């Protein structure tokens, strides 16, 4: 990972590839790298689908090593959905393979003049960019099948489906999993539309002849990794809960808390939640010959995913995540896992963000395009997106645009991006993160990272309301740093609860780069990333007034707790003061 590749898709005479040393970006990875490149090199007022925007693919700082859980790929750009800076990351094999080939980042620049569609092949010998118009408007599953015939199974694929090609604002970028299924998506923010605007349909990553990235201090690295894995395995969340039930284990708990947004955020409890729960999902998967435990990339010890089969035992999709089950389930009043699984497959196949699409269909139902709970209608609406009909194009551009087109007053978005599966009225602290994150509403922007160990901003009194802002700040700082390592965010619990596991993570980073890494260094990195992102957004025209939830969260109480969002604006405005 000692160099950066730039591919100017708009160069005269066809795409042009150049290579450079990492230079000022040395030692960075993942979100730190994508966000600093965007903040430094992209005009903040550019059109996200125009030639001035850049699309950056960056493995994490530890990707491509023997370190466990290091397989997240960050993709960054100016978002066409939010207009802000955007980092969206995914698992799958791509980050590991790209890092082993030796790139800290691959940056797509410019925009071709014609209609040709391109594929990019990256291997140890270099990078080639080829026209391949036979791939036009193919969706992800058949696209990968076609590519496999040419490039085989010992590679990783990064692709966009028809949604990305059509530049729909909810379009995702897919990364293949170990079984070469396009199931791992950089989902949020419309990054797939930016790839579509660059006219790049697929990136084929071939690390044949390359080895694992070596650590500067191999024995220390190996020892730290062993302790890190032990910590993950012994923790009840990463060692038991997630492997058994996946992230959908949250459905029952959110519903019980009254924080499960139902029928476009009209209620906090869904009567059909037990049918959608992770526990029910795992039972069904195993009964049908699938699995409730599966890793999205090699080297994952948490294995929070699974395989969802139909009643005849045929593969439908990977195990839908909690947010997907919620968005296509309770948010739309649907209590059927088979319907959710089909919609998840359609999202993955067309190349769409499952959160954005589920919320959008709920908004469409609120507009009267279908009844809440109508399973067939939800599938029909998704089919419209896949066909690229005028209605489908509206829906594929997300909840905010759909709400505007169909006159829906209450649309759950912040900075144009749909809220995830946690109602901010009963759980006020997550509302602070939704409102203030640089990325638009995003539950992963302030994850449950080891802020208690990092002591970012000191301890917080659990009984003080202003503690919510302080906690969200701490979490956002820590998350920005973890997103830069390439580590899966699900390591959060083990490093939060077990200081020795957090130390093992620091030791892995230190041993790999031959430095001493402390908690303060992690905090400094997180602040650096957030400051750059915040500065970009400010220059793009975002002000503190954009750091607010939609008005109805302040005015409409939600049952059963009958609360509104009540964190004062003045407190939200303090979040980035450090």
């Amino acid at each position, binding site marked *: 990972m000692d160099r950066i590749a730039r591919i100017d898709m708009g160069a005269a005479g066809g795409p042009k590839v150049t290579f450079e040393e990492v230079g000022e970006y040395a030692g960075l990875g993942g979100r730190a790298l994508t966000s600093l490149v965007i903040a430094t090199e992209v005009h903040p007022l550019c059109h996200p689908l125009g030639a001035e925007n850049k699309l950056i693919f960056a493995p994490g700082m530890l990707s491509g090593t023997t370190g466990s859980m290091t397989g997240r790929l960050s993709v960054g750009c100016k978002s066409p959905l939010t207009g802000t800076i955007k980092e969206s990351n995914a698992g799958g094999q791509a980050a590991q393979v790209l890092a082993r080939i030796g790139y800290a980042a691959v940056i797509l620049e410019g925009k071709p003049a014609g209609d040709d569609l391109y594929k990019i092949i990256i291997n140890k010998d270099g990078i080639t960019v080829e026209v391949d118009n036979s791939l036009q408007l193919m969706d992800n599953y058949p696209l990968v099948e076609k590519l496999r015939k040419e490039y085989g199974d010992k590679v990783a694929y990064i692709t966009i489906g028809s949604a990305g090609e059509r530049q729909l604002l909810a379009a995702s970028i897919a990364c293949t999993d170990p079984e070469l299924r396009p199931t791992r998506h950089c989902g949020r923010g419309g990054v797939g539309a930016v790839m579509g605007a660059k006219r790049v349909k697929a990136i084929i990553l071939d690390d044949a002849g390359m080895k694992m990235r070596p650590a500067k201090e191999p024995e220390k690295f190996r020892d730290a990794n062993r302790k890190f894995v032990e910590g993950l395995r012994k923790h*009840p969340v990463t060692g038991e809960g997630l492997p058994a039930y996946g992230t959908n284990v949250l459905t*029952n708990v959110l519903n019980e*808390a009254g924080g499960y947004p139902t029928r476009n955020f009209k209620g906090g409890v869904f009567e059909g939640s037990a049918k959608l729960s992770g526990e029910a999902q795992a039972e069904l998967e195993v009964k049908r010959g699938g699995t409730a435990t599966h890793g999205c990339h090699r080297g994952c010890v948490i294995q*929070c995913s699974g395989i969802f089969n139909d009643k005849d035992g045929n593969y439908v999709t990977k195990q839908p995540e909690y947010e997907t089950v919620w968005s296509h389930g309770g948010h739309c009043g649907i209590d059927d896992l088979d319907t959710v699984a089909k919609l998840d497959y359609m999202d993955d196949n067309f190349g769409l963000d499952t959160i954005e699409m589920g919320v959008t269909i709920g908004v469409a139902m609120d507009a009267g395009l279908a009844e809440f709970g109508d399973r067939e209608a939800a599938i029909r609406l998704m089919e419209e997106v896949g066909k690229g009909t005028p209605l489908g194009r509206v829906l594929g551009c997300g909840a905010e645009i759909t709400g505007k087109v169909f006159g829906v007053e209450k649309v759950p978005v912040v900075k144009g991006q749909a809220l995830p599966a946690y109602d901010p009225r009963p759980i006020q*602290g997550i509302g602070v993160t939704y409102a203030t994150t640089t990325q638009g509403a995003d539950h992963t922007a*302030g994850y449950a990272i080891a802020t208690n160990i990092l002591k970012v901003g000191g301890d917080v009194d659990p009984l003080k309301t202003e503690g919510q802002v302080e906690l969200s700040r701490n979490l956002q700082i820590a998350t920005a740093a973890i997103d830069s390592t390439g580590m899966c965010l699900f390591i959060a619990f083990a490093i*939060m609860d077990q200081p020795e596991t957090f130390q093992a993570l620091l030791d892995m980073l230190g041993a790999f780069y031959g430095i001493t890494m402390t908690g303060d260094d992690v905090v400094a990195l997180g602040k650096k990333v957030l400051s750059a992102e915040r500065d970009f957004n400010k220059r793009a025209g975002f002000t503190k007034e954009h750091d607010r939830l939609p008005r109805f969260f302040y005015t409409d109480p939600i049952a059963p707790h009958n609360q509104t969002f009540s964190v004062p604006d003045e407190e939200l405005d303090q979040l980035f003061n450090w």
Partner: protein
Amino acid sequence: MEAPLIHLTLTLPSSLIGEFFPILQQGFLVTAHVGCTLQRLLCRQWGIAPDYVATRITTIFLDSKATDNVETAIVRDGATIALSGAMPGLVGATMRRGGHLAAMRGAMTHQETAADATDRIGTVRVKLFNLLLTELGPVFLKRGILMGCSDVISFFRERDETFWESCDGGNINGTPVGAGLLRTTQPLCVGGSVRLTVNFR
């Protein structure tokens, strides 16, 4: 006249515990001494080890409010208690008992009040989630749970061949009943409530 309580006992292989997950998640009624603390209910009445309560039941909702202190929260007649193991994500950490992120949940935290908490026999609704389904589910089923006749009938009708082939039959009010007859649900069509006990072998 009120329909009598039916005492139904089933004997099943332990591999079928998953069949009861929907009931255990949605909640079942249990007779209990109410007006006591949650700790007392869980440990003294239900026999759950204090160490298990402290380390394994990391998330507890009492009437939909996240509960931090089991030693002060009072369980009243008609209460709903949801028990969960450790949860992922920000919200999972937020809901955790006495967790570092408890401030994130604000007013949905359980606050004990001075409302009447008379010590008497009552019923509480219990919900079990995730890891606790397999660990505590058999304990509650062995002690017996209260369900409406119609809910038991629905449960039986939704079971497939595997369940009925593995079922050794049961016992209704002390009288043995074969699996075939149970499957017809006919003995339960008298209405009222059922005290369901399941012995796993």
